[in-house]
């Protein structure tokens, strides 16, 4: 892959307790990482993931809070069930499981998200781009033959 791996980052706005980390995410995120902030991982609909994949993302990272630390008590528990299953399901139909990365952060953690993103990026670049799951960017077959 010549260009940098495109990463869609879905971030629960409560999971980065450290202001320095949050500021880094808000202002210094590299261009190949597209940030979507959500009120809670529970807000992340599997459709968001599908949209990211079909929009051409090479990988998806979801960062959220640990089970007992959810700002809304149970939002992340719901997210864990759904998103994990969605990832399993995508894997079942041929999407590489490694392209969806869950990062559950302890509120005490510092500086982890930078490292994780870098590692994830390296991992994706090693994997190369995927042809699995059609993207919306691709043009449909001229429509000649329906």
């Amino acid at each position, binding site marked *: 892959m010549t260009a940098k791996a495109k990463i869609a980052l879905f971030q629960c706005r409560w999971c980065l307790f450290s202001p320095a980390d949050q500021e880094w995410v808000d202002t210094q995120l590299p261009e190949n990482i597209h940030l979507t902030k959500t009120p809670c991982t529970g807000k992340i609909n599997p459709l968001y993931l599908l949209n990211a994949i079909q929009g051409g993302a090479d990988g998806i990272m979801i960062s959220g809070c640990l089970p007992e630390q959810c700002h809304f008590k149970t939002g992340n528990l719901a997210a864990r069930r759904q998103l994990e299953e969605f990832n399993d399901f995508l894997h079942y139909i041929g999407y590489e499981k490694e392209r969806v990365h869950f990062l559950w952060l302890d509120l005490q953690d510092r500086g982890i998200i930078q490292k994780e993103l870098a590692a994830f990026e390296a991992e994706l670049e090693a994997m190369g781009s995927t042809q699995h799951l059609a993207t919306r960017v691709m043009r449909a077959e001229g*429509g000649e*033959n*329906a």
Partner: protein
Amino acid sequence: MNLILPKIDLPDLLQSWRKKFTVFLPQKLERFSHFMPLDDANAEILEQPHNTRIPPKALFLPMTEALVKFTRFGTYDDAELEVSPRIVFGMRPCDAQAVQLLDTVFEQEQYTDPFWVKRQEKTIRIGLGCHVPCANGFCTTVGYGPFSKDGLDILLTDLGDSFLVEVLSESGKTLFENLHEASEELKNQAKEIQHKAHDAMPIAFETENLKEKIEQNFKSDYWDEVSRSCLGCGVCTFLCPTCFCFDIVDEVQRQERVRNWDSCMFRIYSLEASGHNPRPSRIERTRQRLSHKYAYWLDQIGLIGCTGCGRCVSYCPVGLDIRAMLRQAQSLPFEVSHAE
């Protein structure tokens, strides 16, 4: 002009056409047949008596096609469309008739659809008459037939080990240059086959006064009765060779404005931005579908907008049968508005 084509020669002939044309013919796809371009391998010529699952209208009005290319700066351009010369081989007369009907929609004087016309102009249509009647078709009922010639450049009649080739247009003529003229005997044999096929098709319902009955019973409970088990899916309309409704949608990522097949059986089809829907339930939508085919088309061009291919009958998920619905419509009350 009537020529004779031995079946043995057909594969070579098809291959020879490929030098100048893309040749579409029904080929097996999973458990049904589908119009696909012929490649090097000699395709098995399907001898199934029934139709392709998707009608060949899809070759002229694809399920999805780009109409306009736009940029985010707000400029618009026609979508490019390159159509190479093509031959559609093995169209059944009901489907060819349907394409002919759709011409009246897309090739109007006032607004001509350039995409439809481009495909139309580049296409030679070779029909294959149905010497074996299909189970759910009712072409003779609606005024067409298993060997009807409308919309075709060539009509083939299966004579067992050869085809009788009826040349119906100039563009069709060039394709069969080296064939011999058919003998009178074979011509007569073909005629007999055609008549027999025509007579073998049952009359599924009476069409006399059908339009008036449908129109006059616009508010009848009949529509509720016939649509009660309808699911509101698009099978009947998407598989219909004469249904042409489409939706226009902007695909932002591709920067294209595309048209997709749409169906009057969908709730959002007629839903307005205000929330008002002129056809809020399956009752009104079923009424629209039937009335369009059996009343509105008649007002517009004087022909029934259904060619009796029977696809909607075969594939309705709940077994709704348009023939039964129309038989029931015949029992509706109506007043003769103008005496002879």
